[in-house]
């Protein structure tokens, strides 16, 4: 059977205008012409996605993921090459597209549905099931400005899913909305897939990509870097991140002063059942983690500052701290030093990286930075956001309180997910 999505030699160039083109000024020639930059957002991409496959696209910000998605959805045309998609495409970026606050839910369903390619008759027939699915009930004849945001999103999603797409394109949009809604979305996507639809997912949420996608493409600077299983692509993604972070973590705002300190190994350590510390890539949420940094001083140093930054999968800073203000101690020329950082891993499940930097004690220059080391936090799947505050839930009763769930009392017991690397 022929591919559901077929890209051949696809490149997409964007023109960025430094100032908005104006008819009058360009006619009157106030300026020698509009200044512009040209950017290749996607370059030389060949891709086949089979019908029924679930395909993921990952990459750093600006790597061309959204552009690829708009190309697949036909929203924009390639500058070179060809894009073919078989069957009806429903971009989930289009959830609630064209919804107008003054119109009723029913009227909006017709507008949104026909934008997604349904005929009036098809919408007539599906209306009941859309209303059911969105759980908006009698609100369907109320202007959507009176909807809660949850109802609004549910109705939008219900229409998109009832467009019965052969190709469903999903993006970060699913990262918004409450947990229950996200779970519902993923359930529906699985159902659609089992009925033969192709799903393309563009996401920073590596966990979701890992769960949902059979094959994953890694883009970097618009070029395909790797295509393979989720694990392979994510591993390659970490290589890309490490290679680039050497520059970005150095952006501590400080000037880099090379050849004073060299950082050797950076290791993430976790304890096993017997209390032995091992190097690991997997950490149980809520347990103690040790960071071990080895370095060598090239010249004599009276003191230095060790800084660490924990980054989320999308490169956002989750936590940063350093020894600034507290003496680390002198290191002589040619001497090795080892810094240990212990912290409690209060993080939601996901992939993280820790980057280490050594600054001069006067915080005027950065002496060295190490490529980030990644680790995976397991065990707190229900937690979302940046930090895990380990909320202890209880129920207040007349005779006192009954604990519903207290994560800090269960954490600390290392699990079998620990492995040596």
């Amino acid at each position, binding site marked *: 059977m022929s591919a559901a999505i077929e890209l051949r030699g696809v490149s997409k160039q964007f023109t960025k205008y430094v100032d908005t083109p104006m*008819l009058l000024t360009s006619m009157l020639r106030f300026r020698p012409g509009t200044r512009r930059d040209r950017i290749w957002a996607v370059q030389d991409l060949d891709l086949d996605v089979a019908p029924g496959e679930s395909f993921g696209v990952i990459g750093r910000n600006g790597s061309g993921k959204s552009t690829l998605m*708009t190309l697949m959805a036909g929203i924009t045309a390639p*500058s070179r090459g*060809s894009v*073919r998609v078989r069957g009806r495409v429903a971009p989930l970026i289009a959830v609630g597209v064209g919804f*107008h606050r003054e*119109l009723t839910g029913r009227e909006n369903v017709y507008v949104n549905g026909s934008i997604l390619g349904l005929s009036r008759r098809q919408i007539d027939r599906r209306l009941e099931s859309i209303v059911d699915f969105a759980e908006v009930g009698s609100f369907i004849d109320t*202007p959507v400005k009176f909807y809660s945001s949850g109802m609004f999103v549910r109705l939008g999603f219900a229409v998109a899913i009832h467009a019965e797409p052969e*190709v469903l394109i999903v993006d970060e949009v699913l990262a918004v909305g409450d947990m229950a809604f996200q779970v519902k979305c993923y359930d529906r996507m699985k159902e659609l897939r089992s009925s033969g639809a192709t799903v393309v997912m563009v996401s920073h949420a590596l966990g979701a990509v890992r769960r949902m996608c059979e094959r994953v493409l890694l883009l970097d600077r618009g070029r395909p870097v790797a295509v393979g299983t989720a694990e392979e692509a994510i591993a390659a993604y970490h290589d890309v991140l490490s290679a680039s972070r050497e520059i970005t973590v150095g952006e501590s705002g400080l000037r880099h002063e090379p050849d004073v300190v060299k950082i050797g190994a950076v290791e993430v350590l976790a304890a096993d059942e017997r209390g032995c510390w091992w190097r690991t890539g997997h950490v149980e949420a809520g347990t103690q983690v040790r960071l071990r940094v080895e370095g060598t001083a090239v010249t004599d140093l009276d003191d230095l500052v060790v800084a660490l930054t924990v980054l989320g999968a999308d490169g956002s800073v989750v936590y940063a701290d350093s020894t600034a203000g507290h003496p680390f101690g002198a290191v002589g020329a040619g001497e090795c030093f080892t810094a240990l950082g212990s912290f409690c891993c209060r993080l939601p499940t996901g992939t993280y990286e820790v980057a280490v930097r050594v600054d001069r004690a006067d915080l005027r220059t950065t002496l060295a930075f190490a490529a980030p080391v990644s680790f995976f936090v397991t065990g707190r799947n229900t937690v979302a956001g940046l930090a895990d505050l380990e909320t202890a839930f209880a129920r207040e009763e007349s005779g006192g309180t009954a604990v519903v769930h207290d994560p800090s009392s269960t954490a600390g017991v290392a699990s079998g997910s620990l492995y040596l690397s």
Partner: protein
Amino acid sequence: MGRLRPLRTLMTALTSELGERGASPPPLSVDLHGSATGPGGLARAVWAHRELLGILARKEFHVRYRRATFGVLWAVALPVLQSLVLAVVFSKVAHIRHASHYPVFVLSGMAAWLYFAMALAGGSTSIVDGSDLSSRVYFPRILLPLVQVATNLYGLLVTVGVLVALSPVLGVGLGSGLVYLVPGVVVLVLVTAGFVLVASALHVYFRDIRYVVSAALMMWMYVTPVIYPPADTHGPLRAAILANPLTGVVELFHASTVGATVSLAAAVSVSLAWAAVLLVAGVSLHSRFDRVFADLL
């Protein structure tokens, strides 16, 4: 149990969909080679989305008229009020000489002019204004300006209704001349569509088209025979009026009530020539850039 209900509804939807689709393989819904769409591709896309035009026009209409209190009343009152003010100002203050029935002359000309002005103002910015839609889903962008051409027909219908109702009151008996309204509306829509298609495409790139259009509309009205009959003019002003694509349209509207004052055949030919050139230009702009408009939004 509650969790199963959405599943069931989804399954019914799926099975009914299979019934609709039959055994034929899914069509190619995206088939792009390079960035230009071409007139044929655009025509196919418009055909495939033909229902969307009606639905978007209805939406626009509902949003504009139905929800606003006195919405329909405004649609009637505004053009009548505007025409009456002009009629009073120019007949009493500026002493414009017109053989007879100056208010009906103004009202019939304004009916055409207001449609043109409203559709052009809304249509020229329509693709940018609709960026919420067009940056997230594909449909031929040409639908957005066409929606403006279509929805404003409702306002035109209302003003023409007022015109027909009010003319006898103002002393103009209407007769067989009314048939001029048919070619009048047709040529009006063609000329308007031509301008709207060109302006909407240009506005995606040149963001000052919005201001250019509103400034142009302000001056344009004075070289269109809506306030004074063209017979009174000479020199460059007369040349401008004769070259004006709207003269033919407005004169067809005049012909339906108080009678035309210039050679209809010549003026209408000028209008049609403009319409043809602009429509060709507009359609080729849209077919060239249809799939790259979204890049600039």
